[in-house]
């Protein structure tokens, strides 16, 4: 399963992406996490992702980003602030499962 994380410039989301990747590996789940900037999101989300996740600090852009994801019928969620830290991997994973159901 592919997950796309988006933040302002794709810098801080790289940290959250790493945390999510590690949390998924620990549970033996096949999850690939990529990060990108707001500007790149509309194009990147077309590349076969299961879900788009928006960083909390750009939540004022959530509506715009969600529209872009809706256009290709990909679910898009706003990351809860508690999950957006280097220690937040399990929380991110839980949020994905909340949105998509259990990951197999």
């Amino acid at each position, binding site marked *: 399963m592919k997950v796309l994380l988006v*933040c*302002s410039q794709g*810098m*801080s989301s790289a*940290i*959250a992406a790493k945390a999510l990747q590690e949390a998924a590996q620990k549970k033996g789940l096949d999850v690939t996490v990529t990060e990108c900037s707001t*500007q790149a999101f*509309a194009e990147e989300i077309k590349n076969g992702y299961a879900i788009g996740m928006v*960083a*909390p*600090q*750009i*939540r*004022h*852009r959530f*509506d*715009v980003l969600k529209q872009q994801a809706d256009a290709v019928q990909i679910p898009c969620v706003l990351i809860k*602030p*508690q999950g*957006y*830290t*280097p*220690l*937040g991997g399990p929380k991110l994973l839980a949020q994905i499962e909340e949105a998509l159901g259990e990951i197999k």
Partner: protein
Amino acid sequence: MFDKITTFMDEKLSVPMAKLAEQRHLRAIRDGIIATLPLIIVSSMFMVIAFLPNSMPAEWGITKFLMLHQFKILLPYRVSMYIMTLYAVFGMGYSLANSYELDPLSGGILSELAFLLTILPQTIPAAGEAITELAAQTPELQEYLSSLPGGFLMPMGNLGSAGMFIGILATFFAVEIYRFTQKSGFKISMPPQVPSSVARSFEALTPTAVVLIAVSIITIFLGIDVHSIVLKLVTPLISASDSLVSVLLIIFLSQFFWSFGIHGWSIVGSLARPLWLVLLEQNTTALVNGTEVMNTAAEPFYQWFVMIGGSGSTIGLAILFAFFAKSAYGKALGKTSFIPAVCNINEPMIFGAPIVMNPMLIIPFIISPMVNATIAWFATSLGLINRVVASAPWTLPGPIGAFLATGNDWRAAVLSILLIILSVAIYYPFFKMYDKDLEVQEHEEA
């Protein structure tokens, strides 16, 4: 009680304000300008190299070599950062057209057309008989005449930051015309059998004609110099942005948004970045021309003296969590967020500590950058450090970035280190309180 107030302010004030910055025209400016940042950063490094001789002994071979070739070394800068509006306009037009679901490439090209029509090409008239006669007697004049380029020439001054505001207006004009012609059906439509790429190129004919004719009338036939008019209007705005009051206001706004967990710098930057670029470009131009560098508060000033470790000068807090935390959570957070903080990425701390909606940490989060800014402002205006002339990649560690951004001034690196120590001191009492709280919580849970 505190929760209620913050939730209220978040829902009624900060999010709606932040959403304003998402208005499509503002977004287009932001996207267009951000797209030029790689150009600005890389060509800034050419500036740094060209002006290395300023900080090296004059007798070194490399110093002499660089001095000799300074003009050539700066040519890449002349076709990149020096004419950045030319690039930004394409990006802004692309983004704005895209937001209207119009063909973005046509939007970019139309905007570029409208912009360039405000800067007309010129020719150098051929030398008259009297000059040719004089030149026959003076070899120096002869050489000068033969060095003059022929054909049409484009004055480059307004293709740079000086033309930024006209660039923005030209983009809006061109794309709005494009949208109007598409929406009103005032366009050449093709039968459905025609391939869509061909149909699109025909659809762009009407807006192109309208833009071309309208802007030509203004600048060529009426002879109106829109650049000088707009420059008169924005000059007070530019000089106002370069004052301590505006610096503190900008920082306060950015920190206010961040306190709710919204990317304040990106919002404030959407509005202020055109001004910052003008300030920076005026500085680099002054440096290249050998005149006095005048402006203080271009974006690199904030980057290297205010937002050390990320918005809020949080490098101090990162050092405290990494080396002085007693609570288990604080230690774990410090370990994971210290390296990102060195690279000026602080979301791990903002959301991890958290600083967001945390009354204990919000106070130093707002005070620390404002104190740093005030000190750096006076250090700059007293001439203790050079003014910023280059844009270094923002993920460089603070002192290195400060050194590069000020045109290789080691004193700026020293100031950066002093500000880091000061930030540790300002965060310390609040950090102590919070760390203690965490420890107590951990005890209760255990």
